């Protein structure tokens, strides 16, 4: 019996123990309130976390108590917010009042209370994220800018001021990890400027109340910044095209003007100024022509007779009333052939032929020559080149003999009759032209040999040439100035037939005989002292001294005096000569000196006293300075 009872007791123990192990009936675990949140400060929701359920179905209840009252209320809504939640609607929600909330888990075994939580709705506000986030891309001077705008969450009442929201947005390029955050304050739009063109961006916005929690980020809004047409690039393209165009034009211009550019950059070696051989002629085999440049045309004379060359005559026209008028006036130094004033100049670089007095006006074409000679020292001189020229091209020396007007400037040509025949005793004209040995081929014209007017009238047309013979170079002067009325011509005939001019019986009244009676002064030579030796050419008839040539040295040609007289200074008169040919001597002696003015009737005798020495002193150099004085010839 006892054994049976023991077995029964063991069985009961086993049974109980078994039962005890298999069933987990217990009180439910302690739930915990996780959080309570209010989206708009008008309602709120609390969530809890249930504990272990204890093996039994457990129910949860939420109870709350408001501040200042002991009434316990249960959650009005367990479903709206989901499981294990409690939703307090507007009627149940009071702001600025503490809520004491407790969750109770209950199962068959019992109930378990959670820890109470005190909340004030004001401080648990977590709004919804902002809505309607829009992104607008705009262009501001080729730079993109983004304007993001949004609306507050719908439930939050910001318009009445019940809730104040502060916003924040963030943006990033698609594919990147790092966001760029921008606080936006209370405004509902925001501008962003640092954007890449052609990029796709994401932007999000969130908000929070002034004392509360941040909302969740809104959904990403995608926007793409379009590729703006690179206007900047287009400008560069235009500039480049333009520059290329200009570059091409420049190259073309350089190519076209390459020759001149070469000249500018690399100037060619100047050729010889001296005319040398003409290669072409050399090649052609014409030696004569080739060497023609080397040879003066006159030398060696080929066609002329030497005899003819020996004699050169200067044809001088002596007007009846007047003596030889010499035109003056050039200022040699200014190189102008028309200068009126006659200035003395130093005898620089002048040859014997040069003298002021012999300066005569030139025509335009001869001005060049004159200028050439000016270059040579201010004198026009017939150089060797002259003979090359045709007779027409010869320098026409215009002696502008202004009878009455001393101020007349005339073109002057300084041409010298190469040979001057020394003036004989004829006082009338300085232009006694004895035969004179030839000197140079040059012909110098003596202005002084000109008598004014009456003679000139027949020769009124300027430039009139009188061909007195062949092989002479005739220079005729024309008075180009209309003021003067008189044209005087100085004719220098070189290599000429000399027309004898009558002796100086004329000189008394200074009337030049007509043409035929022109006396010629033959230029003998030009000595070193710049003296022109004049030889009077006297007709055979008149000469009482046959063959005898009176060479008289004349110190100077002073030039043209104011009265347009050629001043010739006779340095000395050889008495012997005078003695020999008294008549002639008389005539010759008086000549040189110019003072031949029309007015002077004293020229009857061309006797020049030694007083002329005085004149020599006055004249410096070998120049006859016509401006200085007028030598009376007596």
């Amino acid at each position: 019996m006892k054994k049976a009872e023991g077995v029964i007791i063991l069985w009961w123990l086993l049974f109980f123990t078994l039962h005890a192990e298999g069933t987990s009936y217990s009180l439910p675990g302690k739930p915990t309130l996780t959080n309570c949140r209010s989206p708009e400060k008008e309602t709120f929701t609390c969530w809890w976390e249930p504990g272990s359920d204890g093996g039994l179905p457990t129910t949860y209840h939420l109870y709350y108590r408001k501040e200042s009252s002991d009434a316990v209320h249960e959650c009005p809504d367990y479903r709206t917010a989901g499981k294990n939640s409690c939703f307090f609607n507007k009627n149940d929600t009071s702001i600025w009042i503490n809520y004491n909330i407790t969750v109770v888990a209950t199962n068959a075994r019992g109930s378990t209370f959670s820890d109470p939580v005190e909340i004030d709705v004001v401080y648990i506000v977590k709004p919804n994220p902002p809505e309607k986030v829009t992104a607008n891309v705009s262009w501001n001077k080729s730079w993109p800018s983004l304007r993001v705008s949004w609306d507050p969450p719908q439930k939050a009442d910001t318009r009445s001021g019940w809730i104040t929201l502060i916003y924040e947005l963030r943006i990033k390029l698609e594919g990147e990890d790092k966001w760029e955050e921008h606080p936006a304050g209370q405004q509902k739009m925001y501008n962003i400027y640092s954007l890449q063109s052609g990029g796709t961006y994401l932007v999000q916005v969130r908000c929070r109340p002034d004392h509360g929690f941040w909302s969740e980020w809104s959904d990403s809004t995608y926007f793409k910044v379009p590729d703006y047409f690179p206007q900047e690039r287009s400008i560069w393209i235009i500039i480049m095209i333009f520059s290329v165009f200009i570059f091409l034009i420049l190259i073309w211009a350089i190519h076209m003007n390459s020759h001149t550019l070469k000249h500018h950059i690399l100037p060619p070696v100047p050729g010889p100024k001296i005319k040398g051989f003409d290669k072409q002629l050399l090649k052609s085999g014409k030696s004569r022509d080739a060497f023609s440049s080397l040879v003066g045309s006159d030398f060696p004379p080929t066609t002329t007779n030497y005899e003819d060359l020996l004699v050169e005559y200067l044809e001088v026209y002596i007007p009846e009333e007047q003596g030889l008028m010499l035109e003056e006036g050039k200022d040699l130094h200014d190189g102008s052939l028309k200068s009126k004033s006659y200035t003395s100049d130093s005898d620089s670089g002048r040859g014997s032929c040069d003298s002021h007095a012999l300066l005569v006006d030139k025509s335009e074409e001869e001005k060049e020559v004159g200028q050439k000679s000016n270059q040579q020292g201010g004198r026009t001189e017939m150089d060797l080149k002259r003979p090359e020229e045709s007779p027409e091209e010869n320098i026409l020396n215009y002696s502008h003999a202004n009878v009455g007007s001393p101020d007349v400037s005339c073109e002057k040509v300084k041409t010298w009759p190469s040979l001057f025949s020394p003036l004989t005793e004829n006082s009338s004209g300085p232009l006694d032209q004895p035969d004179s040995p030839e000197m140079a081929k040059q012909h110098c014209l003596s202005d002084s040999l000109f008598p004014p007017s009456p003679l000139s009238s027949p020769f009124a047309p300027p430039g009139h040439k009188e061909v007195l013979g062949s092989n002479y170079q005739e220079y005729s002067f024309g008075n180009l100035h209309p003021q003067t009325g008189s044209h005087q011509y100085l004719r220098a005939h070189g290599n000429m037939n000399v027309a004898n001019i009558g002796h100086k019986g004329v000189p008394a009244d200074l009337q030049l005989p007509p043409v035929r009676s022109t006396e010629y002064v033959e230029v003998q030579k030009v000595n070193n002292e710049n003296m022109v030796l004049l030889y009077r050419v006297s007709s055979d008839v008149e000469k009482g001294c046959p063959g005898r040539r009176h060479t008289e040295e004349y110190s100077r040609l002073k030039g043209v005096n104011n009265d347009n007289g050629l001043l010739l200074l006779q340095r000395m008169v050889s008495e012997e000569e005078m003695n020999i040919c008294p008549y002639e001597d008389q005539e010759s002696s008086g000549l040189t000196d110019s003072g031949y003015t029309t007015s002077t009737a004293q020229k009857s005798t061309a006797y020049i006293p030694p007083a002329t020495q005085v004149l020599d002193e006055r004249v410096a150099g070998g120049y006859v300075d016509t401006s200085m004085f007028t030598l009376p010839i007596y």
Partner: protein
Amino acid sequence: MQQNIYCSCSRCPFGALVCAVWVGMVCLVFCSRLSGMKAASICGNAQAECHFLSLANLFDRVIQHSARMHGISNDLHSEFELYFLPSKNQVSRVGRNCHTSNILTPNGKENRFPVTDPELTEVIMKLLAAWRDPLWHFHQSVARNHRFNGYGSNKSLEMSDMAHELRKGVQKVVEKMQTLGVISNSVGGLASPEALLAADGSGWRFMKDSDLLYCFRRDSNKIQNYLKILKCRIVPEHGC
């Protein structure tokens, strides 16, 4: 001697005195006029617009001020809890009763009782008036007890001063509203400090400092919120 008022000042000594006095009076009149004009010169012509704009500006300033005050109180409260209430005995808070609880304040957006603008203004004024003394007292207590560090002491003083300034500011806003005719002049009468103090009583003296801080934190939030509501009702076009 003839007293000739037209005589020049240089000639008549008595006339000179009269002239000087007269000139001085004229100057005084002008100066006073100028000073008076200065006050009125800012918004001379379009008074309505000028006042509205200035009212919005005033509201903004007041709201900012109240927000700052609330921030300070929040900081103090959290610091106070950290130092002096390590054990969070939340249950005890339920029993807490602020001395301003008797002031009926709207506790929700759609209130149980409609709150008009004057009423709301009055509530604000009451609140501000109710906290003037307790804040000062609190500061004295904190400074005396040395419980707080220097930061706390400065904050309490600042908080007290800000409450004072805010009250003045709100008074100016009320005055402006009254001049604009937004609210009747009766509001000002109710918001007189004497009446408020009489209604308030001295219940705050028995509160602990922590409770005081807690209550003030709440009330400053209320003030800020009410001001915002008021602003968005009266001048809604600016940031509402």
